[in-house]
């Protein structure tokens, strides 16, 4: 039956979705609590940022220090600067759950004995975990809105901008999940898959940081290979991600999802 794996995955994951959503909503809400209420207050943050090494600034996506002195820039850096690293944990867990966990603990045997094509297991689980990622993003949106309601006099942004900003975390989150799912179908063992996926994400993050610090063309080019580069922390809250970035990540995600299906269809399972 079509949709059964999707439904079952959502049924089993709703609590996790709730916990993740609440956590991310808190992280979206928190910067509003910390937001200064005077221009001097913002300037203090700018001064602190200026005192930090370039590498540290780049680690949190602070390529434009002056922007931290604005409410939108402040929220952007305080949330988007690290949120993908946190969501990487969700993505890796979800990606492993696509096939590697069931295969590693032996429950894939009983699942495959059901009248289910292998592709359906992979595709419906990827869709389910993408839906959960969307729910988490909507929780982030709720966190933004609640935060904005807390300080209406300090930030003036239309509600749909918050929605665009919250949805900006989706492409990277889903991309990381699909990459992990692909690695899971390739290596079968969850620990190995987790280590490889973690290495890929960390490597991509390092490329992004080094590309931001270094002035060489090579570093700039390499930064383009980092999926972290698609999220501009300065503009994410107002503009979300660019169509080109979202499209590029979506295409790569679809290719890897297809690769995961092909690998899983063709090979021996649970050997």
């Amino acid at each position, binding site marked *: *039956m079509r949709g*059964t*794996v999707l439904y079952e995955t959502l049924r089993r994951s709703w609590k996790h979705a709730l916990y993740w959503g609440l956590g991310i909503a808190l992280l979206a809400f928190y910067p509003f609590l910390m937001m200064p209420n005077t221009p001097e207050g913002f300037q203090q943050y700018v001064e602190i940022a200026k005192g930090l090494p370039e590498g540290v600034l780049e680690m949190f996506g602070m390529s434009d220090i002056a922007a931290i002195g604005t409410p939108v820039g402040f929220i952007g850096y305080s949330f988007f600067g690290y949120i993908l690293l946190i969501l990487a944990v969700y993505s890796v867990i979800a990606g492993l759950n696509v096939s590697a966990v069931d295969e590693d*603990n*032996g429950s894939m045997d*009983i699942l495959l004995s*059901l009248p*289910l094509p292998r592709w359906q297991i992979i595709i419906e689980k990827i869709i389910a975990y993408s839906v959960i990622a969307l729910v988490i993003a909507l929780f982030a949106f709720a966190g933004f809105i609640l935060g904005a309601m807390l300080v209406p006099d300090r930030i003036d942004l239309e509600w749909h901008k918050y929605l665009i900003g919250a949805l900006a975390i989706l492409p990277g989150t889903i991309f990381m999940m699909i990459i992990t799912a692909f690695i899971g179908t390739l290596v079968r063992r969850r620990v190995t898959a987790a280590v490889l996926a973690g290495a890929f994400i960390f490597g991509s993050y390092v490329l992004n940081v080094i590309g931001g610090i270094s002035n060489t063309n090579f570093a700039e080019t390499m930064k383009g290979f980092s999926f972290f580069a698609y999220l501009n922390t300065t503009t994410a809250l107002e503009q979300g991600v660019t169509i080109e970035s979202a499209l590029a990540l979506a295409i790569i995600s679809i290719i890897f999802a297809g690769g995961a299906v092909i690998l899983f269809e063709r090979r*021996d399972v649970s*050997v």
Partner: protein
Amino acid sequence: MSNTIIHTEALTKTYGVGTKKPFTALSNLNLNVVEGEIMGFLGPNGAGKTTTIRMLLDFIRPTSGHAQIFGKDVHEHSVDIHRRIGYLPAELNLWKNETSINIVRYFMRVRGGGDMAYVKQLAEQLEFDLNKRIRDYSTGNKRKIGLILALMHHPDLLILDEPTSGLDPLMQQVFNQLMLDFKAQGKTVFLSSHVLGEVQEICDRVAILRHGKLETVETVKNLTHVDFRWVTLTYNEPVRIADDLRAIRGVSDLKVTDNSVKFRITGDFHPLLEVATRQYVVNMTIQAPSLEEIFLAFYGENGNGKIAHNGKVIQSERELEAIS
């Protein structure tokens, strides 16, 4: 003529093809299981039983040869075939935090419906609580939920990998009855085991697999015709009647150790009991022969005792005992 439900032709699985140490788990298996029979698939651990079952279910793909179930290729028509199959793996690993009833519902949804009344009836027969989480079940109870999941959709074919392991003797009787009821409906069972005694009551035929090769397919009647038992008698004083015991028809391989005597016996027990009680018997144990022993006895009687173990040809039971 009966329909062939499972058919394999030169089915072979070699792991590590292209590596320095390829390992052939199953070699040229030709097997037919017909409708309405219970076929036991016997062999020691590592003989290739699970590999065969996993190929039948399309979990792993053969290196060469092919297999059909219900006349359809197991790979190309796996979804159609799985609709009509109930499967119990040797090691059932379900989602630990889920309750049995939730898993039953999930499987019903995947199969497009189900018979909850039948599930409850099975649970009652097996004395099984459907409302517990998987992590809270004992090994025996995990086998029970496995059986329920295999039977709940009224399949036409059951493929069971070591179904009786972990079941207590009472539950084994319940299991046997379930299988006989299933067979009475004209349905087919293919089950693996490494202990003939556990399945001989219900199997019509058994296929014996050794070192990845099918050695024989026989009716249980034929196999157990050569059946024998190991008997150990313990007396309250040193054994004085060894020669009398040795003289009983069907007794062989007799060994005396202080107050005990151990021997093999084929045939009726009455002559033995008449002689054995000439001394005071403290204890008597009767041990079923291992599958290897039955197999060797079977082929020995047919004048073909050449069975290989680790590349060495074994000519006698004594040799086999020595290596085991």
